[in-house]
């Protein structure tokens, strides 16, 4: 097995050059290293000017997502050995503007996330003295899958629609809206539907399905969006066909 492996990083240094370029590094090959370890080796030993984001090193914080060999992955959760023989090409996540090297600007996602109200919406809060909102294991099961999202944005990088139509609200934000819609304690489904049942909401999705393939937490955002479409459609039919319309929940 080779002693070293070549890493090619897509660098963008706006103060030096207006276009990104590839830079090649040779790093030692260690079987137990993740892609992120190789980047840390470069930063510590070869080139301190390389910029990228990371924090937890264990697939929880969702900050180290990058394109490796054209696929969006968490670099802390993918072995260097799985990308041999190299050169291993590392690029910033697709679909988001690049600030520098491997660092994206994520404001767009943050704004879209806030807009879907990813918190428990109540028409009226019950007083503290009445205790907590109880939930059965089945009720927890109804939304648990969607609550596993770590906002790593790999799904946005995999979605060709988001890159072509940046107004699209996108997979993770819609999956997180569903996380609260399916929560038995929540009463905000109608407000979220008003926001999401628009052209740049659920209807922009053409069900390419790659968001669910790349999701490191098996959230299945594509499924969440299609379930939203089914719901919106049945609501529309009911409001058109039933004399009393669709009852609000």
């Amino acid at each position: 097995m080779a002693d070293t492996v070549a890493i090619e990083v897509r660098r963008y240094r706006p103060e030096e050059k207006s276009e990104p370029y590839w830079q090649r590094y040779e790093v030692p090959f260690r079987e137990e290293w993740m892609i992120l370890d190789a980047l840390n080796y470069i930063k510590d030993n070869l080139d301190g000017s390389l910029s990228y984001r990371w924090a937890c090193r264990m697939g929880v914080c969702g900050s180290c997502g990058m394109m490796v060999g054209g696929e969006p992955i968490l670099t802390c959760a993918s072995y260097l050995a799985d990308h041999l023989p190299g050169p291993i090409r590392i690029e910033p996540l697709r679909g988001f503007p690049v600030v520098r090297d491997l660092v994206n600007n994520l404001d767009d996602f943050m704004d879209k996330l806030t807009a879907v109200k990813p918190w428990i919406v109540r028409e009226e809060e019950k007083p503290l003295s009445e205790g907590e909102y109880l939930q059965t294991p089945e009720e927890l099961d109804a939304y648990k899958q969607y609550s596993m999202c770590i906002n790593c944005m790999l799904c946005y990088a995999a979605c060709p629609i988001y890159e072509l139509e940046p107004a699209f609200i996108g997979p993770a934000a819609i999956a997180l809206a569903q996380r609260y819609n399916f929560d038995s304690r929540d009463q905000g489904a109608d407000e979220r539907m008003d926001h999401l049942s628009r052209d740049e909401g659920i209807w922009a999705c053409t069900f390419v399905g790659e968001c669910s393939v790349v999701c490191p937490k098996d959230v299945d955002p594509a499924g969440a969006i299609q379930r939203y479409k089914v719901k919106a459609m049945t609501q529309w039919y009911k409001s058109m066909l039933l004399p009393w319309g669709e009852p609000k929940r």
Partner: protein
Amino acid sequence: MNPEYRLHHPKWYRRKVPIFWWLSKWSYMKFILRELTSLAVVYAAVLLLLQVVAVSRGEEAYANFLAFLERPGVLAANILIILGLLFHAVTWFNLAPQALVLRLLGRRIPDRVVLLAHYLGWLTVSALIFGGLARL
């Protein structure tokens, strides 16, 4: 130093999406093919309507229509169209379990069962149509 750069004014980079972005990955290509083959569905529906029109115009018109369908060029095109239709139907059915999350006795019905139900439905409808035609 890049002359376009001003200190403390971020200059973000956004790549231009290539026109043939969908050639970069089989899953993207499959998606584009799935969308394009919906035209085969339209074609098949129009063909059926034309056939009905031909029948309503009498025996001679229908014979002419059948003669048109038997031309080698038309035959070859229709074989391609059928392949497109099959691709569209199969890829579409394969997506169904993701959209249909159904629960029975507190448990989610497995994807395979939803998929099987779709194919069984397809088979049943086809059998009914062919059975009906055979009796005529």
